[in-house]
């Protein structure tokens, strides 16, 4: 049953891709293809729901041999546990909604069928990644989603910016993937398998075989695998591709670059939880924390609605990483889920706004082009705009928040739904899911800090908290600039209209999902069991006296989160007896503190935003001028792109040129050198001859040989007495030489 369900889930999108992809390639339209693709996704969604019930009580693994060699076998298979089940639902659900949304949004695009084919392929790949029970399978899915991301970002490849962005996305993530692959190689070399679960899986072997001596390499391996997540989930420093990826159609941004693919990194990290060591966890946490904070700060100063959301996504993904790095497994995944819904909603909402603002998609992509061109001239007044060599720095007018405002009346549904999502992401308490997940993370980090008395985790907590505040600030900035106030561009404003049903319905559904409805699954401790972390050893000095079983926060009693957290901690501690077998619960007070603080910072953020952008009591401009350097830093996204463009790309190209030159000069040069030596030695006998400069190894050798031949020719003067001289002198020489020998 499980197997067939999973197979069905995978096959539905795959079949849709295979059939429609080929047709799309041939530019043939299959009638009602969009409906069929969507139907396939819906079937998958239904199956996912069915599967939800199959999970309990034990995780299941089903494998087949994929590559069998003499001594090792690489298997492919499904691993189904609660996390998988929930992820399946998230993916299929968001995907189905995006499919529906796209029917409206992409309507009229000349490559409309191909779009759906790509979406199907993406869904398949993502689902494959989610259900894989082994690293190789995950890697395969991982790369395939990367491919889809590439194809979809570059969907409107006529735009140079899109073409650049898709390449950048693929390459940047591939850098991370290589790290991941190296990590896989390390694990494979040690364990001779890439399966994660079961008797012979990596986790079991790692738990039973590894000793403290292995911790160094295991940490390295963990960090390397996390590199893949850095790339895919756009963590610092490989995050720059994600904002550029907004060149893709907005539904794509919602599905791939907000809800699912970018979250795959988090998923992977969570999957690798059992082999994360102290060090690798800390690295993950720091990367996540820094990303969360930095991306949030960048988001403050963006004007492109999609890029604000992109940075927001980066920031939120950082959050999740932070959570997992800090050991809050459930909280991280929980946030992944909630984020998937509200961020998808935000993107789709922004898509709706863009759609409303600009009916470009109805006119086809050529139209877009004209706009692109005109933008280049029309927006020169935008002095903040970068010089242009940084990818995606020019803002399309239909995405520029400075052109918006007052849309709440024109697009009520979009407004309401987006507001819900914003409240959710900002962490407005209690009725929005984002609050709970974010709180869980904050609490988890603080709890770990208190439990281990770890300075690191305190720093991380502060980062997370600041990021939360900033998030609230820029998200409301977005809402205020877009939906409130007066229309800033009347012409465009007049054109705006509410989106069609196919677009608003998904918005509404997602809005519902942004409330803590389905997410309760995470709170079921029996359902979600965090895996053990046998290699996590808290620093000895960090061990503090057992605290009292502190009062449980209000939230926990309300929704039963405490059980899940308790389960998590039990699991975490049970597995290594060296530590905390008394089952202390240092998190108790942490929850309360974290919740209070998070509510405070969220409120502060919203309030400031209101002051700045709605009431305009405070002037953003004056602040900008006051803190010009900081603003510049934020505006230039901490100069990451400049760094990459200026240094790395140049370095690579330089290296390539160097190699090409090397080929032409050094390799040739060596041979030339040999040639020169040969020539000179021979020249001692035959006299000097012309040194002709030639390219190429063979040329040079041939030339030298040829020249020697020519020299020999010259002895052949045609005068018979020369010949006789050579003969007789030759005789004398032969005799003398052999006499000497």
């Amino acid at each position, binding site marked *: 049953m499980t197997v067939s369900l999973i197979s069905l889930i995978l096959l539905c999108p795959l079949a849709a891709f295979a059939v429609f992809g080929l047709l799309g390639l041939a530019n043939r339209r299959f009638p009602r293809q969009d409906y069929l693709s969507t139907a396939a996704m819906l079937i998958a969604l239904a199956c996912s729901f069915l599967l939800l019930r199959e999970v309990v009580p034990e995780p299941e693994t089903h494998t087949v041999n994929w590559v*069998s060699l003499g001594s090792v076998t690489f298997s492919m298979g499904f691993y189904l546990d609660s996390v998988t089940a929930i992820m399946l639902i998230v993916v299929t659900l968001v995907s189905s909604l995006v499919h529906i949304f796209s029917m409206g949004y992409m309507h009229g695009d000349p490559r409309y069928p191909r779009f759906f084919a790509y979406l199907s392929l993406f869904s398949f790949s993502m689902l494959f990644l989610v259900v894989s029970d082994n690293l190789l399978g995950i890697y395969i899915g991982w790369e395939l989603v990367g491919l889809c991301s590439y194809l979809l970002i570059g969907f409107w490849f006529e735009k140079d910016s899109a073409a650049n962005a898709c390449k950048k996305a693929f390459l940047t993530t591939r850098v991370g993937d290589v790290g991941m692959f190296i990590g896989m*190689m390390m694990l494979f070399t040690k364990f001779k398998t890439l399966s994660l679960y079961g008797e012979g899986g990596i986790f079991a072997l790692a738990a039973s075989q590894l000793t403290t001596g292995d911790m160094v390499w295991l940490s390295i391996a963990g960090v390397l695998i996390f590199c893949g997540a850095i790339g895919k989930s756009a963590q610092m420093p490989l995050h720059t591709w994600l904002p550029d990826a907004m060149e893709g159609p907005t539904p794509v941004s919602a599905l791939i670059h907000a809800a699912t693919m970018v979250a795959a990194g988090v998923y992977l990290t969570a999957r690798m939880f059992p082999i994360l060591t102290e060090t690798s966890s800390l690295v993950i946490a720091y990367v996540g924390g820094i990303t969360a904070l930095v991306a949030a700060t960048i988001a403050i100063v963006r004007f492109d609605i999609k890029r604000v959301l992109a940075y927001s996504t980066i920031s939120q993904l950082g959050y999740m990483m932070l959570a997992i790095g800090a050991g809050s497994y459930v909280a991280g995944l929980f946030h992944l889920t909630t984020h998937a819904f509200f961020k998808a909603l935000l993107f789709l909402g922004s898509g709706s706004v863009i759609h409303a603002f600009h009916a470009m998609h109805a006119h086809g992509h050529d139209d877009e082009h004209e706009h692109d061109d005109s933008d280049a001239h029309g927006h020169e007044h935008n002095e903040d705009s970068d010089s242009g060599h940084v990818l995606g720095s020019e803002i399309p007018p239909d995405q520029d928040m400075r052109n918006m405002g007052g849309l709440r009346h024109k697009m009520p549904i979009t407004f309401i739904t987006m507001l819900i999502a914003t409240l959710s992401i900002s962490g407005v308490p209690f009725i929005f899911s984002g609050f709970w997940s974010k709180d869980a993370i904050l609490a988890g980090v603080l709890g770990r800090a208190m439990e281990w008395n770890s300075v690191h985790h305190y720093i991380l907590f502060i980062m997370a908290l600041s990021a939360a505040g900033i998030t609230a600030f820029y998200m409301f900035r977005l809402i205020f600039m877009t939906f409130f106030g007066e229309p800033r561009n009347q012409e465009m404003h007049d054109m705006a209209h509410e989106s069609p049903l196919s677009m608003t319905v998904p918005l509404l559904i997602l809005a519902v999902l942004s409330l803590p409805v389905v997410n309760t699954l995470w709170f079921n401790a029996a359902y979600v069991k965090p895996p053990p972390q046998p290699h996590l050893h808290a620093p000895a000095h960090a061990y503090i006296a057992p605290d009292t079983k502190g009062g449980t926060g209000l939230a926990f009693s309300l929704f039963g989160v405490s059980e899940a957290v308790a389960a998590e901690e039990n699991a975490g501690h049970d597995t290594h007896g060296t530590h905390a077998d008394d089952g202390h619960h240092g998190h108790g007070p942490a929850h309360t503190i974290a919740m209070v603080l998070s509510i405070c910072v969220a409120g502060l953020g919203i309030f400031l935003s209101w002051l700045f952008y709605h009431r305009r009591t405070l002037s953003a401009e004056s602040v900008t001028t006051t803190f010009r350097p900081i603003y510049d830093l934020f505006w230039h996204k901490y100069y990451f792109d400049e760094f990459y463009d200026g240094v790395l790309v140049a370095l690579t190209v330089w290296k390539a040129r160097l190699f090409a030159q090397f080929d032409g000069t050094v390799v040739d040069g060596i041979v030339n050198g040999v040639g020169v030596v040969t020539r000179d030695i021979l020249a001692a006998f035959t006299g000097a001859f012309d040194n002709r400069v030639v390219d190429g190894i063979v040329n040079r050798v041939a030339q030298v040989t040829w020249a020697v031949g020519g020299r020999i020719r010259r002895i052949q003067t045609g005068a018979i007495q020369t010949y006789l001289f050579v003969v007789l002198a030759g005789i004398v020489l032969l005799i003398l030489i052999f006499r000497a020998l």
Partner: protein
Amino acid sequence: MLLSLMIFIPLLGMIAVLLLPRESEELIKRVTLIPLALAVYLFISYDRSTAGTQYVVNAPWIDAFNIQYHIGIDGLSVTLLLLTALLGPICVIASWRNIEKGIKAYMALFLLLETGMLGFFAALDLFLFYVFFELTLLPMYFLIGIWGGPRREYAAIKFFLYTLFGSVLMLVAMIAVYLNSGDPGARTFDIPTLIALASTEGHALNNLNFQIWVFLGFFIGFAVKVPIFPFHTWLPDAHVEAPTAISVILAGILLKMGTYGLVRVNMAMFPLGLDHFTNGIGFWGNSLALLGFINIVYGSFCALAQTDFKKLVAYSSIGHMGFVILGLAARNDTGITGAILQMFNHGVISAMLFLLVGVLYDRAHHREINGFGGLGTRMPVYTGITTLAFMASLGLPGLSGFVGEALSLLGAYDEFKWLTILSTIGIVVGAAYFLWTLQRVFLGNLNPKYEDLPEINGREILTLVPLAILTILLGVWPNLAIDMFRESVTNLVNVLQAI
């Protein structure tokens, strides 16, 4: 008998082509289908459960030197035989409308080439092996030189001289092996016998010093063919100048002859020598892997710097063959399997790439990457297939290129940690140049010069589809290929481990 048929039918075809009048084009086309049909039969009937050689024919040939007509196939040979037989008809189709002058001569040379290649992969007698190896030279020289591009003469002679240079060193090594194989009168060229002798304690062949030298001799011979840095510079020229179908053969099969030779002779016959270069102390112990690494990185970076589409693909071949070398250097079954898979897959994928370059060249009459742009709108099918080929070549999982590369790296990491890690740079750079090319050729605004560029036609698609299917099939189900040679690899690894 079946094998002999397969090898010599192209030769008979060549004679027929030469004797028959021009009009018999249909016949010419079909000649290459016979080996393919036989190959399909081989594929079905090949016994995958054994490492032994099958379809053996062993007849005396030149008694004076104990040279035998000894052919047979094991897992590795059959894999490459299949590849050769598959690419044969594809190349014939690909050349059908492209080659205008002297189609008869072209086909005759092509068929001779095919005999050489098929024979090479089936030969079990070292002498025969060498003869077939060399047999490919002359046809290739003429195929490049007559039907090639503007600098064809240069490219052809460069190819010829380079390869001959390598093969004379190989000849010396081969004679040395022969002379040391026994007392006068009892000497042999028989590869299985030599393999057995080479691991017999106390035999003259089982001597480290001797094996190192003959290993080097054979290695250089094969290295030129592979090509391994620094013997590679013939390749870009040859590829750029060769007509499409010949580039396909060059990249698809001829390069494999080098790596096949490395496995068949260098690894199997000189395990001590191999041990010295892959497992020895200090620099030499890493030398083979180092060469693999250099090939990967060097080839990739050179590819990145190219602006000629075909040259780019040519350099990418150098990079990809590096994975084969790296995998072989690992000497474990993961690495070797990866290497063999990579051989086969590279054969398929590079064939596709060259066919695709040819398609574009036929239409635009140039290959300057920067001279295109936006072809994606004009030629969607072509773009799609190219994307597939590029993705396969850059090692996208799910397509065949990945499996070989991944297994090679996984195997190599066991032995050479740092070199393997550094080699992964090649993966990124590989993606970089392919994507960059994709962008420059297909994405962006359509270059107005090419508004009327016709879409890829049916004949061209026909050449590409089988390869594309194989690419996907082997990416999804690599065991299909691995089944053929698993036992052979295990056998080889056992021999190597026994040192």
